[in-house]
């Protein structure tokens, strides 16, 4: 085995991720000199734009922070507004919102696992050649993604940039007939998940471990999605309102995205973090899948995030059926609460596909936003990616891997976090 002495990796505008970022690694005389994850996405300054906005336009506006998790942003924004003004959201509206959220989780996770990550595991550039070479897998992916999108359409009016999620609840509830049909589809599609699990069993994910702190919402009686306490695998517990102490944002000059930290120099959020913190609340079927795919809490291999996503897809599908059952038994005529505009401050924390998302607004007595802060999961993960890279490269040069192999592993590492870069530079 020949020791590689010099190495220069320079991935400009990494592909198959949302947004623009670069990987830069320099190894000289067998020693790592520099390894960094640079976010070069152009910032859009949503927090600045939000100032002066009527509160009811904030969810519509912030939905546009991200095309993939727009429902998550809308929900976090709504939660911030509603908590600032003490709006009580009707139970059924909460259920419908969660259903929309689940649709997004399915859609986003499927997109990531199958369209963005799988090509690496199958050694192709994109999903397109897989249409010919692996039609069954592509079929599964397309059907599941369609299911996720349709679930969003049904519950929120549209999958990208939802329309019917409004302050107070929902402007329009789906018809029971449609819910009934969706319930059936969800159950039928579980077979596709089983197929996907079979496929994944046969794929080897890179073996890389770095001790990491994982941050997620804390479930009380179920796997957490909207609101609640914040926890970490290092034992930190904080309230939702105390999110700033959980994120500790700071800025580095080489990247347009901010970085965050908690007990260590960085932490991770997302599917794996949720899994590591809330394993007990997964449904039976999802736990079985976890066992089959060799994932158990607390797992420190970032590449396993893909597996955690697959497990979550299954979990939310099962949970969606339960939610629909509850909705079918309920009266869906009125799913929006009236509310009084008043001044206040509120935080909304929501587990979106890539981790915890926080929106925090201060609203004046006219209902206009005076101050806004949004902390995006990818912002939280960026630092962790940045700190994973040197460790990964060091381990790999010790194993004597080639430039190409290391480059690919670096790319796959970033992709494993499913970063939503434009989101992180909102």
């Amino acid at each position, binding site marked *: 085995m020949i020791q590689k002495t010099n190495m220069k990796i320079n991935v400009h*505008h990494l*592909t*198959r*991720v*949302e*947004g*623009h970022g670069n990987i830069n690694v320099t190894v000289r005389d067998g020693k790592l000199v520099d390894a960094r994850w640079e976010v070069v996405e*152009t*910032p*859009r*300054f949503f*927090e*600045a*734009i939000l*100032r002066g*906005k*009527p509160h009811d*336009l904030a969810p*519509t*506006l912030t939905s*546009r*922070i*991200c*095309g*993939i998790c*727009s429902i998550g942003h809308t929900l976090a924004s709504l939660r911030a507004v509603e908590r600032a003004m003490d709006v009580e959201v009707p139970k059924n509206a909460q259920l419908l919102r969660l259903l929309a959220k689940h649709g997004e989780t399915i859609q986003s996770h499927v*997109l990531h696992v199958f*369209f*963005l990550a799988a*090509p690496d595991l199958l050694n192709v*550039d*994109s*999903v*397109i050649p897989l*249409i010919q070479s692996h039609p069954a897998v*592509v079929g599964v992916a*397309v*059907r599941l*993604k*369609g299911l996720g*999108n349709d679930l969003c359409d049904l519950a*929120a*009016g*549209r*999958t*990208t*940039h*939802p*329309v*019917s999620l*409004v302050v107070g609840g929902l*402007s*329009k509830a789906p018809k029971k007939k449609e819910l009934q049909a969706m319930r059936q589809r969800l159950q039928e599609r579980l077979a596709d998940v089983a197929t996907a699990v079979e496929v994944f069993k046969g794929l080897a994910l890179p073996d890389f471990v770095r001790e990491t702190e994982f941050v997620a919402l804390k479930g009380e009686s179920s796997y957490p999605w909207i609101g609640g306490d914040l926890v970490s695998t290092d034992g930190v517990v904080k309230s939702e309102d105390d999110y700033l102490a959980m994120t500790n944002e700071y*800025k580095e*000059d080489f990247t*347009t995205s*901010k970085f965050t930290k908690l007990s260590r120099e960085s932490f991770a959020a997302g599917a794996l973090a949720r899994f590591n913190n809330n394993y007990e609340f997964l449904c039976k079927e999802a736990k079985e899948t976890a066992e089959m795919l060799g994932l158990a809490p607390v797992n420190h291999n970032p590449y396993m995030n893909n597996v955690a996503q697959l497990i979550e897809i299954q979990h939310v599908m099962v949970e969606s059926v339960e939610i629909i059952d509850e909705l079918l038994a309920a009266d869906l005529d009125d799913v929006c609460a009236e509310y009084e505009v008043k001044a206040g401050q509120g935080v909304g924390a929501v587990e979106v596909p890539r981790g915890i998302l926080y929106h925090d607004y201060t609203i004046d007595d006219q209902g206009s936003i005076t101050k806004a802060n949004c902390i995006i999961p990818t912002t939280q993960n960026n630092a962790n990616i940045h700190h994973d890279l040197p460790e990964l490269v060091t381990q790999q040069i010790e194993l004597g891997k080639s430039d190409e192999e290391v480059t690919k592993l670096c790319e796959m590492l970033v992709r494993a976090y499913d970063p939503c870069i*434009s*989101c992180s530079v909102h």
Partner: protein
Amino acid sequence: MKYLGIDPQKVRVGVFDFTGCEGCELQLANKEDSLLDFLSLLEVVNFREVSSDRGDDYDVALIEGNISRADEIDRLKDIRAKAKVLVAIGSCACFGGVNQQKNRFELDDVVKEVYGDHKVETDKVKRIADVVKVDLEIPGCPVSKEEVERIVVNVVLGAEIKIPKYPVCVECKQKVNTCVVDLGQICLGPVTRAGCDAVCPSGKVGCLGCRGPAEDANFESLKQILMDKGHSDSAIVERLRFYGAFNGTVG
């Protein structure tokens, strides 16, 4: 069309994103029941979000997002030079989208608000057409996949593309929706170009005009109607300026 003796031409496309949320690009991978047929009409040579293939030999460049930094101008001009047809997709690319709301503030002020004392490079938001020649605009926030499909089919066949000239109300009425103006909301449907199947009013929220003005739209009348119903001038203007699509027509 074979029956006419015309062979459909697969289009070689490049998809490029600038400042935006990438929601429009995402639509290209949506509408699963016809996705595979849709993809078979295209040869994707460059689409960073879903593919590592980075070809330069595209005929049609789909541009998402707007321009808000100097390096983007160069990248866009380079794409323009290579593409035969340049299509702006989405409200950001066509009108500036929500991002142009930044232009109402001083640049220094927005940077300071978000990044404090750190230096971050940013410019006023520009539409794609402000920087290079645009051959076709497909508005929407996000674009409607149905419309994109229809347009791609016509491009492949070399047929003229028709987009509605009438306002959203037509589609809204066809869906037998309750008019949200009757419910006390502001709706820009009467002045906004149809083609979205009135998604927003169908979800019982007022249209915000992401598709830009309909032809011969009557802004004065709509404004008068809404003010008569008790909505404030500022609330109406706030909505008209939401996507930047009416900036030429409202103050």
